[in-house]
């Protein structure tokens, strides 16, 4: 794999790829680019947002269907990536979502070495979540579901 571009400064506002996601979750340009190359290696992908210890709070990226989504999960949206036919589903456990639902999530990528079984780790990079609070107007539009 050629050099992977990553975000370097966490304090900067991370741009999003327009129309890459939904009102709740979207992709940074670097994450979008990485997903294309990872799909080339692993086939269609999915995300499940983790919580808890160590690499908790990191979005875990798996071959689609490897992680079994159940009744205790919420589907936050599908992420569209230019160059990929199928959008990438983004899920989170419903109980965790209750504490996260007032924030918009941007899937970004930084240099690093996450553990867990997320597929990007061997490439020397790690998906990471950037968050911002929804405005009151956005909350109304989303119907605060």
């Amino acid at each position: 794999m050629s050099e992977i571009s990553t975000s370097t400064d966490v304090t900067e506002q991370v741009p999003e790829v327009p129309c890459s996601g939904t009102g709740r979750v979207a992709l940074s340009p670097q994450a979008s680019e990485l997903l294309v190359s990872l799909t080339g290696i692993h086939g269609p992908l999915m995300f499940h947002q983790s919580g808890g210890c160590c690499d908790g709070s990191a979005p875990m990226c798996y071959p689609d269907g490897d992680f079994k989504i159940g009744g205790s999960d919420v589907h936050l949206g599908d992420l569209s990536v230019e160059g990929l036919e199928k959008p990438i589903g983004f899920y989170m456990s419903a109980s965790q979502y209750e504490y996260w639902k007032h924030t918009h999530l941007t899937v970004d990528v930084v240099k690093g070495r996450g553990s867990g079984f997320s597929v990007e780790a061997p490439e020397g990079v790690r998906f990471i979540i950037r968050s911002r609070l929804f405005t009151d107007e956005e909350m109304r539009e989303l119907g605060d579901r």
Partner: protein
Amino acid sequence: MATYAAPGQPDSVVSFKPRYDHYIGGEYVAPAKGQYFENPTPITGRTFTEVARGTADDVEKALDAAEGAASAWGRTAVTERANVLTTMADRIEANLERIAVAESWENGKAVRETLAADIPLAIDHLRYFAGAIRAQEGHLSQIDEDTVAYHFHEPLGVVGQIIPWNFPILMAIWKLAPALAAGNAVVLKPAEQTPASIHVLLDVIGDLLPAGVLNVVNGFGVEAGKPLASSSRIRKIAFTGETTTGRLISQYASENLIPVTLELGGKSPNIFFDDVAAQQDAFYDKALEGFAMFALNQGEVCTCPSRALVQGGIYDEFVAQGVKRAEQVKMGNPLDTETMMGAQASNDQLEKILSYIDIGRQEGAKVLTGGERADLGGELSGGYYVQPTVFEGQNSMRIFQEEIFGPVLSVARFTDYADAMTQANDTLYGLGAGVWSRDTNTAYRAGRDIQAGRVWVNNYHAYPAHAAFGGYKQSGIGRENHKMMLDHYQQTKNILQSYSDNALGFF
């Protein structure tokens, strides 16, 4: 007081090899695919060794070795297994500085902690389980005059263990000591962030175990952890990490119908009742230290007391003094024995912590101290350092609900006992908690009402081998430490024997 020379320098107490292969069947074996990955120290960000990048083929080879060794190891006398464990402990003790410095260089934590906690606790753990296995007895029940039920403990066979990066050696020993004592053979995968220090340990103790009893396959989760966790050749999988991977491992385990133990972290409340400040004495000082315990191991502890709940009557003064205590946490070169807090374990960990500090500010939490990345200058500028940070806010904020796994404390106020319990239990997790009170009745009731597996009363962050550790709610399944842990690595064999010479008379 001293600063240890960095590994690689001629006067260092430890030297890493330039490369580590897998440890399989008692010897070092190159990875099937021939690939290696670089291992940097979080202290400077520079690579100091490279490590085998394991794949399914390597895991299979390790399982072959473990299967070959399991039967004989499981049949050895418990005295013999206990002696192996105590000899391991003695060897580690004799090499304490070497292993402690290796662990600090590997993980970024202050050598003060590895010298005083990580490695001494690992030693004690081995000795505890050496004693526990010898003291363990089966049971028998007399069913009637001529019938007896015998219950024997038998090892499971080959087990898989996936180790986290926050205490690479101590967490490995937490899992290995009971598994080996109970007579199992192990295939262990260290975290990819901290793959090397266990090889320094193996250098010290590897020859004590029969070949194949302990096998270490390094590599990434998706490439080496997954084939291990999903293998139909293991009889149990043990994992410490986060919830999504915990669920995934449970899914694999359900496909193979094997037991799983999961330790998945928490968001532990540390509760200070008004009466703590009834006197300005030694106990009050101890409580302030308890408040600052979030900085232990840079906050990279599953039980980090990352939510301080302080009662209204003492809130302003106690929090002000607690913040002062946190500001006295000395950052610096982790190999300096005066340094109290070292580097975060990896760049992505650093980035994640900074992301949380950012969302904390956005949510309106007030930074009482810290809140920035720390640049320690010189060679350490490349390392991953964060200032001890204290936020003031509400329990509903994300920084109060998610495990940041960094030196970040979120502080909130409570009014009375009921409010304290409501806030303490308003979390997805239930691993640890702290209760501070001079009133034993209050402390006892709180200890019982908090939904967490470990409640420290008037202390925090103590990890003796014979106290059970594990989570309620989404913090996991099963326990670690304590002799009850032997059950997690044993089958129960029941022999139901009749001593009667006479037929039942049914047929």
